[in-house]
C-alpha cells in the first residue's frame, strides 16, 4: 500500500518522529510511506512526495492547529484524492465533545470552536482515527498509531554521559498544573539529594507571544523564581532527531502528559520514544494504564504517589530499574513496534472501503 501523510511538519514538535518511523517500517513491510512536501535536509530520514496520484491513501495528522491546512494547499489534495481515500488522525482528541479536565485543560474553548473544528475534519473525510484504545465518539476509530522503534534505541556503544539526574523533555503546553502540583513539590522535598534537573522544551520560562490573544495563557503557566530556587535548568527544544540523545543525558527521564490526553488515554510519540533513550523512564500515568501499554514492568515505572521517594529509589537502585526498562522494551518491541503499527494502519485503511 502507498500511504501519504499530510501534516504540519515541525522539527521539534508533533508527529514527525512517528512519520520517520512509519517510513522505515513501511519499507521493511513493502509499503511505500511518505510525507507530503518537498525534501528538506533537516528532515533527512523522512521520505517526501508531492505526487498525490501515486498514493492509495492520504492520512492527515491533525493536532491543535488548522491553519497549516491552508486554502492554497488543500484544493490540490481535495481534487486529486477521492474522499474515501482520505483519513484523519486526530492526534489531540479534538474530534470529541467539548471536554474540560479539572477546569483546566480542554480540547475546545466552546461549542462554536468545536463545531468549526469538527466541520473542518468532516469536510475532509468520513473516517477519523484517534491514537487511543478508548475513543468516545461512535464515528471515531481507535488506533494506537504511535509506536516503538527498537532500532532507534541508543545501544551501549552510544552510551551518553549523564549530565543530569532528571530530564523532562516536553513543551510547556497544558502541563504546568501537573508539573507545579506534582513534580515541583516532589523536587522540593528531595532537591538536596539530587544532582542536576533539566527541562528541555519550549515555553518553560515564558509564554509565547499571542497566548493571551488566543485565550491560551493558562496553557503556558510558568514560575521562573520557583525554577531558579530548584536549580532547574531550562534548555530549548531539540529537533526530533536529537530527542533520544537529549533524553539520554539524564539518569532518569520523566514523561508527563497533559491532563486532556491522560483523560482520553491518548498515545503520543513520547510514550515510546522515552524507552529508546539510554535512561530510566518514569511515566506520570495511572499505573493500570502504564501496565496496559508497557506490560507488567510498566506498573513499576509509573510515577503515581510518593514521587520524591520513587525518584530517589530509582537513582539509588538503577540496576533494578534498568532491568524493568529492558522488560518494557521487549514488551514494546513485541506489541508496539512501528511494524505492528503499519499493519494496524493498513488494516484500518482497508476497512475504509477503498482498497481490498
Amino acid at each position, binding site marked *: 500500500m502507498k500511504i501519504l501523510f499530510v501534516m504540519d511538519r515541525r522539527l521539534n514538535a508533533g508527529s514527525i518522529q512517528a512519520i520517520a518511523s512509519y517510513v522505515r517500517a513501511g519499507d521493511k513491510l513493502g509499503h511505500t510511506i511518505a510525507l507530503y512536501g*518537498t525534501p528538506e535536509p533537516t528532515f533527512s530520514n523522512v521520505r517526501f512526495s*508531492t505526487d498525490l496520484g501515486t498514493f492509495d491513501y492520504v492520512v492527515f495528522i491533525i493536532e491543535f492547529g*488548522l491553519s*497549516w*491546512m*491552508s*486554502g*492554497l*494547499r*488543500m*484544493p*490540490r489534495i*481535495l*481534487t*486529486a484524492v477521492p474522499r474515501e481515500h482520505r483519513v484523519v488522525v486526530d492526534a489531540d482528541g479534538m474530534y470529541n465533545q467539548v471536554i474540560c479536565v479539572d477546569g483546566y485543560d480542554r480540547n475546545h474553548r466552546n461549542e462554536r470552536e468545536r463545531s468549526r473544528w469538527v*466541520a*473542518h475534519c*468532516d*469536510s*475532509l473525510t468520513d473516517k477519523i482515527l484517534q491514537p487511543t484504545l478508548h475513543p468516545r465518539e461512535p464515528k471515531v476509530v481507535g488506533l494506537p498509531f504511535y509506536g516503538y522503534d527498537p532500532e532507534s534505541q541508543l545501544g551501549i556503544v552510544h552510551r551518553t554521559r549523564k549530565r543530569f539526574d532528571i530530564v523532562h523533555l516536553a513543551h510547556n503546553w497544558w502541563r504546568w498544573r501537573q508539573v507545579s502540583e506534582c513534580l515541583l513539590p516532589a523536587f522540593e522535598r528531595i532537591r538536596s539529594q539530587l544532582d542536576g534537573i533539566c527541562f528541555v522544551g519550549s515555553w518553560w520560562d515564558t509564554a509565547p507571544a499571542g497566548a493571551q490573544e488566543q485565550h491560551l495563557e493558562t496553557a503556558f503557566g510558568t514560575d521562573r523564581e520557583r525554577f531558579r530556587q530548584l536549580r532547574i535548568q531550562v534548555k530549548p527544544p531539540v529537533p526530533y532527531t536529537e530527542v533520544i540523545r537529549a533524553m539520554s543525558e539524564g539518569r532518569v527521564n520523566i514523561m508527563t502528559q497533559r491532563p486532556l490526553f491522560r483523560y482520553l488515554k491518548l498515545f503520543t510519540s513520547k510514550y515510546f520514544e522515552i524507552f529508546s533513550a539510554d535512561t530510566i523512564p518514569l511515566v506520570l500515568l495511572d499505573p493500570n494504564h502504564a501496565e496496559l501499554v508497557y506490560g507488567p514492568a510498566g506498573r513499576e515505572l509509573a510515577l503515581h504517589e510518593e514521587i520524591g521517594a520513587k525518584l530517589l529509589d530509582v537513582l539509588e537502585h538503577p540496576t533494578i530499574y534498568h532491568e524493568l526498562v529492558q522488560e518494557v522494551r521487549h514488551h514494546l518491541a513485541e506489541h508496539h513496534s512501528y511494524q505492528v503499527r503499519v499493519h494496524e494502519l493498513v488494516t484500518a485503511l482497508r476497512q475504509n472501503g477503498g482498497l481490498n
Partner: protein
Amino acid sequence: MNLLLVAKLDRYARAINTITQYVRAGKDLGHNVSVFGEWRSEFSWLPHSLEIGAFDFAVFVIYETDDFPELPHLARLLDDIPRERRVIVDCCGRYNDTVQVEHDSNHFQKLDGHHGWEWIEGLRAVSDNILQPTLRPLRGDVRPFRFHGYDPTAVARSYSSAGEAASAWSGATNGVKPCGVAYLGSNWQRWTQMRRFLEAIEPIRDKLGTIRLAGWGWDQRPDWASELGVSGVDVDTTLLGRLRVETTPGVTFDNAISFMSQAHFSPIFHRPLFNYLCFVTNRTFETFCADTIPLLILPDQLIESIYGPEARLLAPHEDLAWKLDDIMRHPEMYWDVVLKTRRHLAQHHSYRKRFQELVTILES
C-alpha cells in the same frame, strides 16, 4: 449572470474597493454579484451569500493564502461549483515560477510557509482559468485581465477646465492644500522607490509643504521583518526626519481618495515585482479620482497602455525635482493632462467596461 466573488475582505487593503465597484457595476449591468460568506456589518454594503448553487461562476480573488476560505467552505466550493466555472484572479503574480526582483518576489516562503510550486499547483487545482491584472502574462496559460478599474463618479472634484483645476490646486479658489505630497500604501516592497523619491525631492523640500505617508511600516521596520530576515520593508528614519516626513497609519478604502486629495502631489509606485510583471493595482486608477496631480513613477510601457499617451508628461523619470518645480510653475498644463487622462480612464478602464470584459472571459 450570477457571480460569486471569493475573497478576504479588508477595509485597509487588498481589493475591497475593486470588489465594491464590481458589485455596483454588475448591478447596473443587470447581473447579480455577491461575496462568498456570511453577511458582516463591517461590509454591510456588500451582498454576501453561502448559497453556492445559486451562482453561475465563482471568481477567486487571490493575494495571500488566506484569501481562500477555510474548510469546510472551501470543500463546498470545490464540490459544488464545476471546475470550468471557477476563475482565479491572481493579483500578485503567484501563478508564475519564482521571480525575484530586488528584495521583492512573488513567493515568500518565510512569510506564508508555501513554496513556489505550491502556489502554482494550488491555484491550478482550483481552476484552469487564471487571470492576472497585467498587460503581458509571463505564462502562456494565464489570461491578461486588468481587474481593477476607474470609477469616474468617485472623482473628488470635477473641473470644467484645466485652468479652473489649476486655480483651485494653487489655492486661489479652494483654500491651500494641507499637504504637498501624500502617499497612501503600505511599506511592503516600496522603500527602495520611496527612498529614491524622497532623496530626489530633497532639493525642493521647502517648497513642498507637508509630506505624509499613510500605511503600515513607514515609521519603523516591523519586528517580524527583522526576525524573519525579510527585506523590502526597510525604512530610514533619519532620512524621514531630515525631510520632515509625517507617517500615519493607513486609511480605510472609503477615505483613500479624500486622503490623497489633501495633497498637491500623489505618487503612484508599484512594488518592483509588479513593475516587472506589468501589473496594475486599485491605486493605479484610484489616484486619478483624487483632487491631486498623480506622479507616475511607473514603467513607460504601463503608463502608455493604461493612461494613454498624454500621461507621459506626469512621469518625472530621472528629474523629479525639476518635474515638481515645473508643475508648480505650470499647473494648468499638467492639469490639462490629468483631466485628459481621467477621460481616457473613464473611456477605457471604467468598472462597467471591466465587468463586461470579465463576463466575456467567463462566457468564453
